């Protein structure tokens, strides 16, 4: 996970262990900054991840994600 807290830019982060790889966040992201990882997590899903740039902190991915703790979005 990228540590963007120091710089005042919005970002999202995915807990790769809680993500079930449904990809619903990818479809709703207006900036297309979320992608699916090639790696498998311990539940054998391909988790989503933030590509690292241009997140606006809109939070749409958070609400599209069915998992309570998988996505976190910070908008400074």
């Amino acid at each position, binding site marked *: 996970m990228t540590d963007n807290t120091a710089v005042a830019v919005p970002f999202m982060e995915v*807990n790769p*262990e*809680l993500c*079930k*790889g*449904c*990809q*619903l966040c990818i*479809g*709703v992201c207006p900036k297309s900054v979320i992608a699916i990882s090639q790696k498998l997590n*311990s*539940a054998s*899903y391909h988790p989503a991840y933030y590509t690292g740039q241009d997140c606006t*902190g809109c*939070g*749409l991915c*958070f*609400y*599209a*994600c*069915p*998992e*309570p*703790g*998988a*996505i*976190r*979005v*910070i*908008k*400074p």
Partner: protein
Amino acid sequence: MKVFEKSPSFYQVFERKSGPAKEATHYCPGCGHGNAHKMIAEALEDLELTSKTVFISPVGCSVFAYYYFDCGNIQAAHGRAPAVATGVKRANPDSIVISYQGDGDLAAIGTAETIHAANRGENITVFFVNNAIYGMTGGQMAPTTMIGQRSATTPLGRVAGVHGNPIRMCEMLATLPAPTYIERVCIGDSKQIMKARKAVRKALQIQAEGKGYSFVEIVSPCPTGWKMDPVTARDWMTEEMLKVFPLGVYRDESGNREEGDWHRHYEGFDPAKVNPYLDRLKTSMTESEPVALKQDLNCKFAGFGGQGILTLGLFLSQIGMRAGQQVSWFPAYGPEMRGGTANCSVNLSSRRIGSPLVDEPNVLVVMNQPSLDAFEDSVVDGGTIIIDTTIVEGKPDGKRLNAVMIPATEIADQVGTPKIANVVVLGALAAATDAFTPEFCMETLRSVIKKKSLIEMNMEAFRKGYDFVKNS
């Protein structure tokens, strides 16, 4: 700074969940339940309602909602969540009560509870997750399954002429005058999700203000049940399901209803009026010393409905309880209120009773001819058989059994009414078995007979039955 993250209304770790992954839900990838849970948790937190919320989970995939929500939780029998919610809300009018149900639960087995809770205008909130299928049990057809949709029980697709049409609950409930707020939303694109969030919040707000019944239908994907990947499922839902289940507000009376109008608790309820009655029952059972039984009584009482057969069993049970014995009473009767046959099985024992059934009685009371034919042979050797000779013409095997012949109905009629033949029989039973003293039985009868004006007549009936046997 704005942070979107897991709501504090969820447990941080889902300790109740079995297996590993105690921070992830048990829902399938792309399941709408998670989204709905998040919306509810967020609204509860923002409205500061979490600590007084009672969440009623249904039967269905969301049966485990109590794994997740850090509030009061009850899991209801299939379809009965609105009935349970009604009870919780009326007993705790200050709580926030959420009935969370799927389509199989709410629109099939629980249709009656759903409609009547809405019709009463209970001040509860119902969240109806409609995914057009029975998810948990393996994708069977639900009442909301679409025409043509394949499911485990409609492998060729749902056909209206065979399986009926998808039920539209919002539209149905909106025909009722009582509900305050009814809206259908969906977990589709971002705009729809944001609308759904608002609806969830509004529904809870209406309850918090005591403005009455709120119902939010959340059209939701079930990728596993539909056999689609999560993205395809979401698209199919927004393209196909919304044709049958149009989104929108079907009722909004929140602006016209006064705050607190729809609290459904009873101001006039006065425990002082009820407690003396309950206390009388309690004290009458605990005041006296236990009375030892010479032997266990396994009784069968049989006759026509209306002769007081079941009440006779209850009287003897009360006497047994008051004597400190273990007691069971098990009635068997037809649908007729009068005239059918009825019997009951009563066990009195100093030990715990394993089964309330009495297949081989040691006391049989017979108050009509068919019962003599049906049950005489089942009585154990040396057992007691009490026969009302006013009605029964046949005679039992007097060698094998201790036969007590008593014209109970005739005696009762002389006392005042044939209806108390059962108490005459009770007197005869007490005399024939010597299980309890007549004084002890009569004292118990005094406290259990509801109509006080009839007590003396019952005392006389009991005494006559007792004396008849003792003097014969």
